[in-house]
């Protein structure tokens, strides 16, 4: 049999630069970030290795998609997937995601001065950035609903609470979305302004750090407001970047937990046979492998079309996020089961992937959410795809 249809337009492209990025990321992380490092980071405050992060900065990973004008490599956002996939496979804990999203949001909504001041710092690792979009109680509203920005005197007053702000406790700046005169805006808050307002969250994924931020009554100056009168476009762009990066991370993570499980099935014997020989374990592993292969294809396609402003892009991104979210969580769930009693221990690495898969599938929209949106995008008329 054959694919029902093979298009001639470029569905998936992979430049040599991207191929090299993937290789160098796999190489560096293979050297610098093994399971031992993951375990050490679980109990550390920041959850990452500052010297490794610095090395990532020097390799240009933190400014990859930042325009040259701001000290970046100016590569297309799609190229970030080539880094995020190996990071996911190695369970890297780092502010890469938060900082990248902050850079992208700043690019979309910031003033020239703000970009000139912050983007080089974020790219060099001199500063860590984050974004605060989520609010308690509202799953996947994406745009601000309760956090408001009111004019007061020469500046503004904020009200409300943000949650799931990645790396907030060690971030130098946090970009916060808020409603101002009924329109979404973004304000830039420096660490000093947030002192005493940050409470670390206890996450199912112990390799992550995020916090809840109480903004009630916070007074800020006019210059903290990003100029975009309506930040919707910039926020939506940032969400798309998040979908892409998480899809890539999940593709890598699913591959990582697949290989962890395979290693066990190839070495563990029961009843005198390698347990990987039992169809009850072999066939589910094959199904997981097939799902990963399909998910990766969706991911690379999403990365390829990321620059095109089209419905196809949004379909591609949401498909990747939905499919890989379920593939990763399922692969991790089966890894626990197939490791038997060992898989049920804290010492078995399967739980690291399991917990990360849970986090990644829920963050920035779960499969149910994205499939619902996909229905709206694709089911108007059948020719849509």
């Amino acid at each position: 049999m054959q694919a029902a249809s093979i298009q001639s337009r470029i569905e998936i492209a992979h430049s040599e630069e991207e191929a090299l990025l993937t290789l160098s990321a796999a190489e560096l992380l293979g050297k610098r970030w093994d399971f031992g490092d993951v375990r050490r980071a679980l109990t550390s405050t920041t959850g990452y290795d500052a010297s490794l992060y610095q090395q990532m900065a020097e390799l240009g990973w933190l400014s990859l998609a930042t325009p040259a004008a701001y000290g970046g490599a100016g590569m297309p956002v799609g190229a970030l997937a080539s880094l995020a996939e190996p990071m996911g496979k190695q369970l890297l804990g780092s502010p890469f995601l938060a900082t990248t999203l902050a850079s992208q949001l700043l690019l979309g909504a910031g003033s020239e001065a703000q970009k000139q001041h912050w983007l080089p710092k974020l790219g060099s690792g001199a500063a860590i950035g984050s974004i605060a979009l989520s609010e308690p109680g509202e799953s996947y509203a994406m745009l601000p609903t309760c956090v408001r920005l009111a004019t007061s005197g020469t500046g503004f007053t904020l009200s409300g609470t943000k949650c799931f702000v990645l790396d907030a406790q060690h971030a130098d700046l946090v970009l916060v979305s808020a409603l101002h005169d009924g329109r979404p805006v973004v304000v830039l808050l420096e660490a000093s302004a947030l002192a005493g307002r940050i409470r670390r969250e206890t996450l199912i994924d112990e390799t992550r750090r995020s916090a809840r931020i109480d903004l009630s009554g916070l007074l800020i100056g006019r210059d903290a407001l990003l100029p975009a009168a309506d930040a919707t476009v910039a926020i939506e762009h940032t969400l798309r970047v998040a979908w892409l990066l998480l899809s890539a991370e999940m593709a890598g993570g699913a591959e990582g937990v697949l290989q962890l499980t395979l290693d066990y099935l190839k070495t563990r014997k029961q009843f005198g046979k390698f347990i990987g020989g039992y169809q009850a374990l072999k066939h589910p592993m094959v199904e997981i492998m097939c799902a990963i292969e399909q998910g990766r294809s969706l991911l690379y396609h999403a990365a390829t079309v990321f620059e095109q402003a089209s419905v196809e892009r949004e379909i591609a991104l949401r498909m990747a996020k939905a499919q890989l979210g379920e593939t990763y969580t399922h692969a991790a769930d089966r890894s626990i089961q197939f490791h038997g009693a060992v898989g049920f221990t804290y010492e078995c690495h399967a739980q690291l992937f399991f917990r990360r898969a849970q986090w990644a599938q829920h963050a920035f929209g779960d499969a149910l959410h994205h499939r619902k949106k996909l229905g709206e995008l694709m089911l108007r008329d059948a020719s849509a795809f």
Partner: protein
Amino acid sequence: MSDDPSAQELESFRKQVRTWLGANAPKPPRFKLPDSFMEVGTDEQFNYLRDWQQKAYLAGYIGMSWPKQYGGGGMPAAYQAVVNSEMARANVPFMVNLIGLFWAGPTIMKLGSEEQKKRYIPKILSAEEIWCQGFSEPENGSDLANAQTTAIREGDEYVLRGTKVWTSLGVYAHHMILLARTDKSGPSKYHGLSFFLAPMRVPNVETTPIRKMTGEHGFTETRFDDARIPASCLLGEEGQGWSVALTTLMFERGNDGGQAGGLAMVPLRVAQVIELAQVMQRDGKPAIEDPVIREQLVRFAIEERGLELSQYRMRIPSLTQPRPFAIPMMSKLVMSELRRRLCAFAVSLQGEAGNLYVGDPDAWSDGDWQRSYMNAFSATIGGGTSQIQMNILGERVLGLAKG
């Protein structure tokens, strides 16, 4: 069952139990309770749960159908079933001495000597003596018959040497049902095994706690380094250990004939997930208004109902043909897998909030669902993995060839 009391008798008894539970159900503790006996990790958890079992036993609600001479109630099993269902309804804690009440006790009742019954059963019911299980070994999880721990007879004693793992309640247990090899010369691994009611608090028995994926403790590794136990601890004949163990496994894997009663673990009901769906918001509406979520909730409800009704049906012989043992033998597999999927769904229902974990003040119900999802694997893996269960069902119930 012929000795079954009338529905009216049971109904009035049910009222009586309900009243007692209303007055005596233990107050929720300040600390977090475990999902099951497999997660008992702290003394305060253990003491709280042991006290509850003692209270229930003294009220006559545990071991109701077991013979009076061994501390039981000597009543028809139907009464215990009423108590169990009322305990589930009242959502009271499970019985901490579960291995004693559900697995070791029934095995002793079935195969033990008169002395052994007199010696062990009463304190199993009263939770004075806690039991643990020593079947699995590091190299033999599914392949239990391959046990390498040895028990060498020396005079009136056996000398134990070897390691057992995943010993729930290992630190609190007074006794262990232990599968050990008394003879290595047998023609197959099934020969030369013996079954012991081994004391845990003797020299050269060392237990080391193992941490679980949830971060909790609760089970241990137990090392026997030439530990000496009295020969009277042998259950059944020397060398007949495997057939004794199979009896225990039948009790463990859901064939609920003759178990002492009480709850085995915190019951999770679809109704709780429905409540969750009523609270969680999706697209600005309660999640329960999402048709895709409704569809899934109904699917779960049908599964749960089918299982519940099966427990009822299995007592009606004319409705259990052509596989009279299918329901009891499938219960462990189907219930544990449903529990796992139900928990996973309950976590995903929470959306982004599902990423908060036990200890976060904003986690829904203190992250219970997240923890329960992980703990659900203890039932899909422990007591024979689901994969092993399916082999057993395929071969013993459906009569298919061995793999």
